[in-house]
């Protein structure tokens, strides 16, 4: 009997010690829960938010931006326009690989400054070859280099998008105007979409983005360039906070050679339609059946 009591007492001591050690091990979590409000935790999926829910969410996100980044920003939720389906085309004959588009995307979309992230990657390719294995995305010399051409790659806004298919929680979907978007407040951070994308078009926020207050672009969209939370996936949205308001994507405006063409595929008089009808056009990895809305063409 004596033995049993001693054993029980020892067990009690062990359990107490264990619980204390466990609490100590998980102590960093208190820091984590400080950032996690109940409203944010319980927030519904984008498509389930009523207009008044959305108003409250946008207000909360603006307050968060002010508190965490010290900047007054305006976050809007612009809906797709009726009768508009966006398309993008890029003239490989005149792209010089200067990567102004990469830089513009970085600034416009409030990307993390430390990693120099951007939605666009430019491959330096060998003349006469479409073999990406012979391309190079990390070139560091004057452009254009002889014997090379340049292939900028960003989200292709596929009509049959593998990333949308694989998302287990429908945190990413295709909007009516053809843009594939992510609800950053719904994404669980499993990165299955990143594995599924054949174009390396998705980025994950491995840590909290760092952007100095004076460099923040305050004109923001809920589904596009607002500063992303840590631990979620993001992607190119054809700058929908601009394009849905009738402006052009930031990468197009930054391009010094005019290689980029953007517009409404449903409007027969749009420049994008002219390109599709008059140039020899191709898409990347057509054999995968992703049906991109991003087209490439050559002049000759």
């Amino acid at each position, binding site marked *: 009997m004596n033995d049993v009591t001693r*054993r029980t007492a020892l*067990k009690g001591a062990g359990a107490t010690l*264990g619980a204390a*050690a*466990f609490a100590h*091990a*998980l*102590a*960093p*979590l208190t*820091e*984590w829960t400080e950032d*996690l409000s109940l409203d944010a*935790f319980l927030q519904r*999926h984008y498509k389930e938010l009523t207009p008044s829910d959305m108003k409250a969410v946008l207000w909360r996100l603006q307050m968060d931006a002010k508190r965490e980044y010290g900047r007054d920003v305006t976050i809007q939720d612009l809906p797709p326009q009726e009768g508009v389906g966006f398309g993008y085309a890029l003239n490989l004959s005149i792209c010089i690989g200067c990567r102004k588009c990469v830089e513009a995307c970085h600034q416009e979309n409030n990307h993390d400054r430390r990693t120099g992230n951007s939605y666009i*990657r430019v*491959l330096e390719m060998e003349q006469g070859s479409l073999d*990406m*294995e012979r*391309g190079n*995305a*990390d070139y560091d010399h004057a452009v254009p280099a002889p014997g090379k051409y340049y292939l900028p*790659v960003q989200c292709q806004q596929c009509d049959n998008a*593998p990333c949308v*298919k*694989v*998302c*287990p*929680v*429908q*945190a990413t979907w295709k909007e009516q105007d053809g843009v594939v978007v992510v609800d950053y407040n*719904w*994404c*669980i*951070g*499993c*990165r*299955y979409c*990143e*594995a*599924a*994308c*054949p*174009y*390396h078009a*998705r*980025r*994950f*926020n*491995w*840590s*909290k983005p760092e952007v100095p207050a004076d460099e923040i672009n305050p004109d923001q969209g809920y589904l596009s360039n607002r500063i992303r939370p*840590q*631990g*979620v*996936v993001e992607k190119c949205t054809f700058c929908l906070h601009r394009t849905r308001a009738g402006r052009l994507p930031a990468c197009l405006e930054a391009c010094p050679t005019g290689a980029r063409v953007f517009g409404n595929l449903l409007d027969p008089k749009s420049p994008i339609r002219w390109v599709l009808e008059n140039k020899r056009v191709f898409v990347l*990895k057509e054999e*995968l*059946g*992703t049906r991109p809305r991003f087209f490439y063409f050559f002049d000759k």
Partner: protein
Amino acid sequence: MAASRHVLDYPRFLGRLLWMSTDGSWRFYVWMTALTAICLVGANAWARQLVDGMALTGMSDHVSWGLYVANFTFGVGLAAGAVMMVIPAYLYHDHEMHDVTLVGELLAVAAIALSLLFIVVDMGHPERAWHLIPGVGRFNWPVSMLTWDVVVLNGYLLLNLHVCGYLLYMRFLGQKPRKRWYLPFVFLSIFWAVSIHSVTAFLYSGLGGRPFWNSALLAPRFIASAFITGPAFVILLLQVIRRFTGLPIGEGPGRTLTSVMRVTVLLNLFMLGSEVFTAFYTGGAHAAPVQYLFFGLHGHHALVPWIWTAVACNVGSAVLLHLPASRRHVTVLNVACVLAFVGVWIEKGMGLIIPGFVPSTLHELVEYVPTLTEWKITAGIWAFGLMLLTVAVKVALPVLSGQLASHGAHEPVQRPPDVARQSAA
């Protein structure tokens, strides 16, 4: 009649098992304390990863899955293979197997728990896991293969918990288990075991943009290797149980499982060879990941020593298992099992996940090396899995062997004072 009684008695039974699980010899306490310490290191590393972000891992946008997903995949295989015990026992009426079938099912439970934890630590926002609950969140079923995996893994966990719990409880009560309460579930779990590893293979093989995974042979390869690791682990586990608990476990189950392994190690090597042939004979972009894995590509070769270790282990275990010595000397068999386990852990872990990302979809070569944070968390989860298994086996076996039984469920159950000691470790 008894239904209402069981509602109270079953939780009481589970409570007693739990209490019993805290009794043991000094060896048991040392073992559990060591595992707890490793778990705590892992828990702390995970808490830091949640706060500071997954930048603490070696993963990147190029290699977006790493050690966690590798171990998840392996764990699912282990769980599927553990149920290999069930087939001879119930399908071929091998009665000796019945007694140890439960060990396999308990291993499956622990392995599934481990796999689920690996998924949790791989999530950027684990607190949003409720988005995955059908009806409450937005479950992308049936389109996303990941939702299928959620369904089959949790279903498998429940199935095995039910079968183990029911059989043990009946043994505890001294009643004969009623077939209709467990046999259908046992047969279902055999099919289900195949489904968990097939669905997990489809997670990868369904991605058209990743040539390394986009192979119809992936699911069969997964099943073959599951039927290596499950039996290998159980063979070793049975010896540990026999040694430390003195429970009479016959030689038969070990022999049956060894025969299973003799087939599956060869099958696994054959399928690996088929994939390697297709890649290299065809060449081009499809060969690049395989080239990277086995020989390195353009000066990058982080995985080369790993995969050749795996090949050596797999070939070594195949040779040992087919030597007559493996029948006579248990050490030879044990070495073969350890080699097979390690070989598949590498091949179906890092050797499967990482080359899917290298080269990336734009054919860039970015390598991946796990960080200390990832190793700590991984070790912590494995330690947790072993704790679960230890506790489960330790409390289940005395019940199974009749050392712990209730004599009439209504009477307060007397604990035989010597049970705790006997079942120790």
